């Protein structure tokens, strides 16, 4: 399970990125580390999934990006949740919880 790449639905990844950015702005690499951490190593997101997702989020106005300096003095682009992004995260979380609890309940029925 350590390096297994599971397929995530696009929408779900977007939601998880929003969640990951909830506390503080991060650059791309930082995000991938955080996602790995949050999922206990289940989700290892490659650049090919991460950046397109960030692009999508930026297009919708849920994150905004700015150039900054990373920990080791490297120039990097930092992504931050916007107010709209926070609202969106809230909405999607609620929706997901409803959806998943329904499906879980259905699966438990014999």
């Amino acid at each position: 399970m350590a390096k297994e790449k599971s397929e995530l639905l696009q929408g779900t990844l977007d939601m998880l990125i929003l969640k990951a950015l909830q506390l503080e702005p991060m650059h791309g690499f930082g995000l991938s580390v955080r996602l790995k951490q949050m999922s206990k190593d289940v989700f290892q997101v490659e650049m090919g999934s991460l950046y397109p997702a960030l692009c999508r989020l930026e297009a919708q106005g849920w994150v905004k990006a700015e150039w900054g300096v990373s920990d080791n003095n490297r120039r990097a682009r930092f992504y931050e949740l916007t107010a709209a992004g926070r609202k969106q995260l809230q909405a999607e979380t609620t929706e997901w919880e409803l959806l998943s609890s329904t499906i879980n309940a259905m699966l438990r029925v014999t």
Partner: protein
Amino acid sequence: MNPFRSLFFRLQPFFRRQKIETELSEEMQAHLEMQTAANLAAGMAPEEARYAARRQCGGIDQAKESWRDERSIRWLEDLLRDVRHAGRQLAKHRGTTAVTLLTLALCLGVNSAVFSLVYAVLLRPYPYTESNRVVNLGMVWTKLPWGEMVQEISPPAFLELEGSARSFAAVGFIAADQKVDVRLPGQMLRVPVASVTPGVWSVAGVPPLIGRCFQAQDLAFGEGKLAVLSYEFWRETLNSDRTIVGRRLRLDDGTYEVLGVMPAGFSLAGKQARLWIPKVFSPAERSEESRGAYAFQAIARLKDGVSLEQARQELKVLHENFLAAHPEAREPAQQMGATYGAAPLSTWVRSRVAGSTLFSVQAAAVLVLLVGCLNIAGLLVVTTHGRVREFTLRGALGATPARLGRQLATETVTLFVLGGALAVPFALAGLHWLPSYFDLEQTMPYGQSVQFHWPFVAATLGVALGAGLLAAALPVWSVTRRDTTRALQALGYHTTAGRRQNRTQSAFVVAQVALALVLLTAAGVTLRNVQRLLGKGFGVAVENRIVARAALPPYRYGGGPGDTQAKINSFKLQALEKLRALPGVQDATVSNRVPLSADWPMKFGFEVPGYEPAPGEQPAITFVYQTVPGFFRTLGMPLLRGRDLAPADGADQEPVVVVSEQIARKYLPHGDAVGATLQFFGRACRIVGVVGEIQNVPLSYGNAASIYLASAQWPAFHDEAVFVIRTGLPAQVMEAAVVKALQSVDPLLSVQVTSVAQLQRSAVFTQSAPAQIAGFFATVALLLTALGLYGALAHTVAQRTREIGIRLALGAPRPAILRMVLRRGAGLALVGAALGVLGSIPLLRTIQSLIVEKEAARADVLLLAAGVVLVVVGLAGVLPARRASKVDPMIALRSE
């Protein structure tokens, strides 16, 4: 979620590509480096750390591609790139591109113009309310050549129908083809006018633009001097003056109150009229005397719930009632199968416009479009085949067939869009020129200018585009289906074109040759037809004759029944004197109409006592000329027997007539026609002379016999005097002098000058127009075909350069190479010609029904056309053949 924000975001790369790409690279590079650093920190060796980082992060280039899908509008990017690429490709092959664009422009332009015209004149639905309920009422003579077609109506017949017919919600009477003098401050105009009964407005159901139309109540009291203006008249003559309603206009010798103005393009029963005045029936018109005056139109609107069939049945019954009340009319009615009839108005109007001519022009235009499309398709096949290698390589590099297909489609579409844009000036020129060529202002039922019919233009472009795409796709499709490696291997040796490509190309050329031949045949037949017609002559001398038409309106000249002809006769005499005195005038005469013209084309019945008509025979009808002594001499008509009219044939003398040869031959075959009697308009006339047959009216009208009356002995049949002047000087030179001379007798006269030669040209127009048009189209098609064949052969030669080089190196004589190429060309041409001949045979039959000189449609035209095609096409093939024979083997063997 804001869609505009998203759109704006995605449009940015189109303007700031460089910056965005650089930033992305930097960002992803940073990501990689950070991962590497993390790996190092975890204890890996530097090399290992880097490789691990690469694996963990995934491929940069693929990531960039996925990112690009999100960052910008991908399909738009690709499209723009393809269009730019297409532009470069087109610029590279300048020759081919130019030919294709020109072909497209010509074909599309011509077709659009022609169809817009055809639609405007023939196909556009009639602009009345519920126009399918509007019918034309009139006489039907089923036993005569025109069968079930509804003809004109006479006043008593109309009044009868108006009174008794129950199938119609409204009926109206139209007396058109009249003119009035309109006196305005500073100018005197002679304007076409129609007198109509108030019912016509209800029939049409079209509300006036301003004001109102006259109704029955308006005519019950007062003199009925009311007028409704047409939009065109209101705009051109009165400058769209809105205050005109209620004001008075001076028409002839009366003043009329203007009630309203009709909307643009409005007309009644296809008759051009500048204004409409109420029709008041005279007692003579109400009486049975005028039963035979079939010179008017009647229109009606079917009542709700009544079908056309039911109306027709009722009309038949009403006619029966008429016959019951007038038993003397029963026999002639039965002979001709007479009854009252009704037909949808649009059908009736169409039958009077040069419909068949227009349709044949359309057919020819479509054929040329086909040839053009084939040409372009052929060219596209050629150019695309040359790029097989490029496509195969790109396929190997990862381009999907869809991607390649899209690029090809973009190129073709760009080409066609450019061609379409170029076609617009051609089409506009055609639209501008065609109506005047067809003299449509006279015949157009709607009075509106012809406009572009955009749906058709779009459809044509679509069809042509579809054909082009198909043609371009064939080679690519065949390439992408093959295994890439094998395809690349095959390209290592330069092969001649695959069988499929060759067959396609050959098929195109053959089809073009066939179509060109068909058009040539049509041109040949119609040209020969015109040649014969002109050669036969029309019974009158056409050269050196000028025609001057002067209107003699009754309000100035009298001339009604019971009136003395004094004013008219004195005018004619004075005018003739003045004209004959003009320098350069050799002879002058006057009549109420002139041969070959469409003026006053009415035919009248006559009887020859003692003649027994056979059952079902056409009634004796004739054109009537009211003329003076010397008419035949001036017009160059031979006097066959007897004598001309003489000054002595005056008002108190026995009425005399001169008849055309047809009458003498048919109705008085025994003995001499001269001296016999003829009943005309209730008077017994003595025949004093016989002249040759002439073409009285334009060819599209029906010709008939003619009789010539002495002007002084009859009331004026027509309120126009037509002078024919024989002179050696051209019309333009004489025109001013003639007008001046005539106006010196009456300053208010309006005079129009033309020439007999001009009349002849107009008269044969329905025959000459198809010839000119077919000739034009055939030439275009032939040129295109020659181009097509040239292209095909040139392509073959280019492909087989290596093979030719080998042959030459092995000792083949150059003429043999020449022959080889020519043989291919000849093969294609012959097959095409054979097909074309086959296709032309049914065409010959169709054309034969359209032309007058049936002899012209003989099959030897086919041989001639085939010969022309083969020669032209052969010449087209010579150039590539010569180039092939001049190939240098050394160069050829080294080339690819």
